[in-house]
């Protein structure tokens, strides 16, 4: 792998899994099929699979480590950006505020880890 590893706590990994699931569900239900959409969905689908396997490792480990391909990093960044836009358009709530904050932190972590 040519990219550095992405290190997440178990809680962060659980939330990332949920974000990817949410984005896949939203995208497949709302965007017309296209090669670009399908490529993104396939990347996220495989990435979720890797994350799920990693999360099932012995819980004694403090952090999970994900080794991402470049296209996975790109897909992840797009996912977070699009989800931020989606949640930002929702009515105000505590949950929305937390999610937006969390997505912002996650994006910052990605940008720092995978500085391009």
């Amino acid at each position, binding site marked *: 792998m040519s990219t550095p590893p992405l290190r997440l706590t178990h809680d962060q990994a659980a939330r990332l899994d949920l974000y990817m*699931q949410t984005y896949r569900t939203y995208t497949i239900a709302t965007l017309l*099929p296209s090669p670009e959409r399908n490529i993104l*969905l396939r990347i996220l689908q*495989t990435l979720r*699979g890797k994350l799920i*396997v990693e999360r099932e490792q012995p819980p004694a480990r403090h952090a999970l480590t994900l080794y991402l391909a470049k296209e996975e990093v790109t897909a992840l960044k797009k996912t977070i950006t699009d989800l931020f836009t989606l949640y930002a358009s929702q009515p105000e709530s505590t949950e929305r505020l937390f999610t937006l904050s969390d997505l912002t932190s996650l994006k910052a972590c990605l940008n720092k880890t995978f500085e391009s």
Partner: protein
Amino acid sequence: MWPFHRRNQAKTERPVWQRTATLPPLSEQRTYVPDVPYLLPKDAQEDQRLNYQHHVLYRTISNHYLAPLAPASVTTILDVGTGTGIWPIDMAALFPQAHIIGVDVALSSLPRPLPQTCLFVQANILEGLPFPDQQFTFTHQRLLVAAIPAALWPKAVRELVRVTRPGGWVELLELGDTIQNAGPATKRLLTWMTTISKDLGFEIDILHHLGDLLQQSGCQDIESQDIPVPLGAWAGANGKMLKTDVLHGYGALKDSYCPRSGTPPEVFDAMMQEAADEWEHNHCSYVFHAAYGRRPQTP
């Protein structure tokens, strides 16, 4: 490979689908599989449609499967109702390290040659799968709404889960009777089809509860999703392809359904055309129902 053996089953009475439904008469035009409750034909024309449908599905739902599989963790795959075998063959390319088995009541449609990692077994899920427990890391079944009578869906899904390894995924994908933006012609067609299907013991409503079936069979981490797919040229090439597939799929049921309802074929054709025109005008979408879940890691 595995020491397969068929599970012994007492056959002292007729199966439930024979007690509750009558198979449609064989048509001179189409060929059907005898002695199974499969409403669609099994001939070269249908093989062509199934392969075409496979490509349509790939383009519209983005992949050959929906479960979040980690490639390295997939070692054995089962496809129930494999038809022409095109799904296992394409999956063999995606998962070259996996052993893949396709099961169907008839294996007359398989191409030659077959990938070395694929094996095909003639079996009927309604009679139990001929595999030991906990064999497969991914168990897949799609579009068997016309093959599994409503009363037998829970049993079928339990079988799928039974042969899946702890931690393995089970996935279901079906196409029912939900068309978004349906107009009166489409509703008339769908009502006609679902009524006849119900008379034959095939209750399409079960398809809205695929996730429930997985849960009742002991699965966890279940994800259910309705996937609306544009139906018609109004949505471009993908929509046009799905429309073609749906028209041919409905057409494949014509020989079964028309005699049963006393509907002349030409009336059916007119009903179909009217609905198809409506799909374009109303920008309809056909809703696929998907659900996948995992067999728990610990018993």
